[in-house]
């Protein structure tokens, strides 16, 4: 790794920190300046004024805004996201740490499925360009991208869970099984968990496969027109070798970046599906927290998701610069 890339990574890192700081500040302002009292819903109707003041003090809401901001930043830096309103005595981090793995399992399995299908499909579509199969295939893919995810989820739910009763409709497993899962490994090794994951995973994958497929297809078409592929043809390499080893490899780079970015966006975008399937993940917690006006939790969940997105955007950039030797240098080459 040359110095150019190292410098690039440091620059990108600082940039990510800057972006995160701005997001965090916006988040702070959003939650503090929004209409409505952050603890309104939490204040019991029987509260005396004193009790209310006390509660405000407990959540640091009695201080002037700028002091609150400093405290907030310091706490965030310590990864202290505060205490929830609605979960007694539990820290936001605690709740989110419990949700995060579930969200990650769902995201990763659906992305894995979607991207394997998408990449292979994209290569196939590029190879079959102009054919009827390609036209039907891409139109179908466009349809899946146009259909609301939750609606697809609803239809799958109706058919597979309610009509045919083949698959469980919600959650990650019955409590009687779950309470024996002491570690994440127990959960991951349990077939029950995987059975519960099938419907939400497929629902997400149906939507997600479109991007890699279309991207792969257009990248392939673009790469296939490039001079080094012509060169490959001139050198007498076979079409299939050119397609897979040369074109696909080059076309794959943007797809990989899209995947890395996709992880972040999926974690943010799974909100709807997690709610349809009552999947105990970050998204469901976020929606519940917003509905319950549990401000610290909503803010924490939002921050968590934003953090993951910014982090993965950073990783995507780095990955791209490592995978594509041109990028690191392009920061320098941009000079002339």
């Amino acid at each position, binding site marked *: 790794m040359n110095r150019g890339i190292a410098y690039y990574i440091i620059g990108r890192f*600082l940039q990510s920190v800057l972006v995160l700081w701005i997001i965090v500040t916006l988040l702070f302002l959003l939650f503090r300046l929004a209409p409505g009292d952050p603890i309104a819903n939490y204040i019991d109707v029987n509260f005396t004024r004193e009790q209310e003041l006390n509660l405000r003090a407990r959540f640091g809401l009695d201080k002037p805004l700028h002091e609150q901001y400093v405290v907030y930043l310091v706490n965030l830096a310590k990864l202290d996201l505060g205490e929830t309103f609605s979960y007694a005595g539990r820290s936001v981090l605690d709740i989110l740490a419990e949700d995060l793995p579930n969200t990650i399992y769902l995201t990763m399995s659906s992305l894995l499925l979607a991207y394997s299908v998408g990449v292979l499909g994209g290569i196939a579509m590029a190879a079959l360009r102009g054919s009827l199969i390609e036209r039907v295939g891409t139109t179908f893919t466009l349809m899946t991208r146009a259909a609301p995810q939750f609606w697809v989820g609803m239809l799958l739910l109706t058919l597979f869970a309610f009509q045919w009763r083949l698959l469980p409709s919600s959650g990650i497993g019955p409590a009687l099984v779950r309470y024996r899962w002491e570690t994440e490994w127990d959960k991951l090794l349990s077939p029950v968990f995987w059975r519960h994951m099938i419907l939400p995973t497929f629902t997400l994958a149906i939507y997600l496969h479109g991007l890699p497929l279309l991207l792969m297809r257009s990248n392939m078409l673009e790469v296939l027109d490039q001079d*080094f592929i012509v*060169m490959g043809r*001139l050198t007498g390499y076979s079409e299939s070798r050119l397609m897979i080893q040369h074109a696909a490899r080059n076309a794959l780079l943007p797809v990989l970046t899209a995947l890395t970015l996709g992880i972040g966006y999926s974690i943010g975008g799974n909100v709807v599906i997690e709610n349809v399937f009552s999947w105990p993940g970050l998204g469901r917690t976020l929606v519940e927290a917003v509905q319950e006006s549990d401000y610290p939790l909503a803010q924490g969940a939002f921050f968590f998701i934003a953090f993951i997105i910014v982090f993965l955007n950073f990783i995507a950039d780095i990955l791209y610069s490592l995978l594509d*030797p041109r990028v690191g240098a392009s920061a*320098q080459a941009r*000079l002339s």
Partner: protein
Amino acid sequence: MSEALLSVRNLSVEYLTQSGTVYAVDQVSLDIEAGQQLGLIGESGCGKTTLMRALIQVLPRNGRITSGEVYFKGRNLLELTPAEMREIRWREIATIPQASMDSLDPVRRVGHQLEKLLKIRGGLSQAQARERAIMLFELVGLDPERLSHYPHEFSGGMKQRAIIAMALSLNPSLLIADEPVTALDVIVQHQILEVLQHLQDELNLTVLLITHDISVVAQLCNEVSVMYAGRVVERAAAETFFREPNHPYSLGLQQAYPNLRQPRDTLISIEGYPPDLRQPPGGCRFARRCPLALAECRAEDPALREIVPGHWAACLRSAEMDALREQAEEPLFWRETEAAREVGLSTVAAEATDAASANGHTAARGETAEEILLDMRGVSKRFKIGGGLAGLVRGQREQTLYAVNEVAFTLRRGESLGLAGESGCGKTTTGKLLVKLIEPSAGEIVFDGAELAHLDARAELAFRGRVQLMFQNPFEALNPRFTLYRSLAEPLIIHGWKDEEERLARILDTLERVNLQPPELFLDQYPHQLSGGQLQRVVLARALVLHPDFLVADEPVSMLDVSVRAGILNTTRRLAREMGLATVYISHDLSLLQYTCDRIAVMYLGYVVEIGPSHEVIANPKHPYTQSLIAAVPVPDPTLKTEPLRIREGVPRPTEQVRGCPFASRCPEVREACLEHFPPSVEIEPGHFALCHLYGEHAESPPLSEEQIAAATSTQY
């Protein structure tokens, strides 16, 4: 012909496009014998690349071969299965494709690509492949260490060498090189040619060289074929071809471009452009542009005939050619072609003025009589890249690019100055400084007595009305969404010409001056409806529509086909005289500058290393760099072989300022003093300056030893 290695018979290729079928190659026959080097010359769009791709059957999806045979070592390639054809490719026929800069897979190391080729196509083991790769790199003059580099780490010349190495990797019987040196700097170009020349001599290669540049053919080939509009129009041994071209087109091409060794006062301009191959005209396809065309030329399609043994031409008048040749070499004669008449070149006025100015241009000028219009006083331009908060968040380290350094020269009214140098030497930046597109970092530019940096808004607008720029790429120089009328009216509108009729009158007048006739015909057109030559005339018209005092022409013809270059140069030169315009030409091409300019300044790494009267600089170069540049220019004459260069390719990046001479790292004459002291600007002849220690107080400084040179240059290269 029986022993021909490759024999093409009546080959036709078509492209199916949305706007109709393009008959790109029409009944072409061609032979290459083993050990022969055949140069295939032609303008862009004449079908030479299509022909090449058809030979090895890698046509684009919409192309197809409609007739003909291609015999290679006795087998008809067109009858082979795709798998058999794949076997032939590279093993038997290797190709250096056009735009080979992008022909390497950007995400794999060059060595990997080469070794993989050797393994898969050559059947070598990894170790053998490695060994052969090293050998090949050495053969083409590349450091084998570079095998582990990525393509983006290679300079253009190095990439081209790598491609040549790949082409040679399987010992092919035939090497096809498609424009192998196009878009390379002249020194690099020369070196690649040297490599090819060397390989030809060493390996006795059979080569099919495809190029638009007859100089390259003159240097590399022993046989020449000329293609025009999908046909071969002439075929001869190289020496015959250059001595006695038979087809008028060949003759025109040879005389259309300035030749450094045999300068001419006026060049031939082959007006017009090749016919639309969707509907090829009946009769001779060149007739419209041919000064010798007769009525029957439009009716009868001439076949390729052997005039004398070994010399073939497709012209009805080829028999009379020896008699006509002298007449055909007269540039004014070419104004009589049908295409030229259509654009109004035959008008008496244009003819007279062009000729007059052409004849007058070399006359010595009284230097005192003319006032100084432009004065560059120690102008420097540095670009800061990266750094700061912006650079930090973008991940860019701060770097300073010393693009232009202490450039000083003056320009008088009506005078023309040429800026020469390799790409990256700062000549374009200097051009931008001259027209105030960018501001200098140091120094002053004084235009007509006013310092450019301190113009107020009104003065700046006035300045903008007096200074204009002409661009390299005419296809980009006009807003594609504007009609030409609008494009030409823009400067007038900006400069407050409110009256539409006055504007129109000025525009029409200017279009006429640039020989676009009748001007009304062009006003409603969009840029994409015009040919490159026409567009460049429009660009010139736009530059002149405000009647400026000063014009900067940045590579004005480098994007154009050879046949129309001369027309643009002639017109520009004439108008500059007519309008008393001071002109700065920027070009990498010294022969062009010699043709157009009173004085030439040679730039290197942002410094003007030599400046003086054109004929002086060309005929009697003082600076070692200028000497190298001139030596590197290929000559369109097979009898004049160029000398090997003593200078290395590759301009270092000007990111640090050296203590000594900026050229020291490449200089064949480098002395000890060159590393220590910045060279003085010495006036060797009146008005002829060189920035070199060879002529200054350190002239006696001892030359460096080989080791010292290596040490001095390793830091930069």
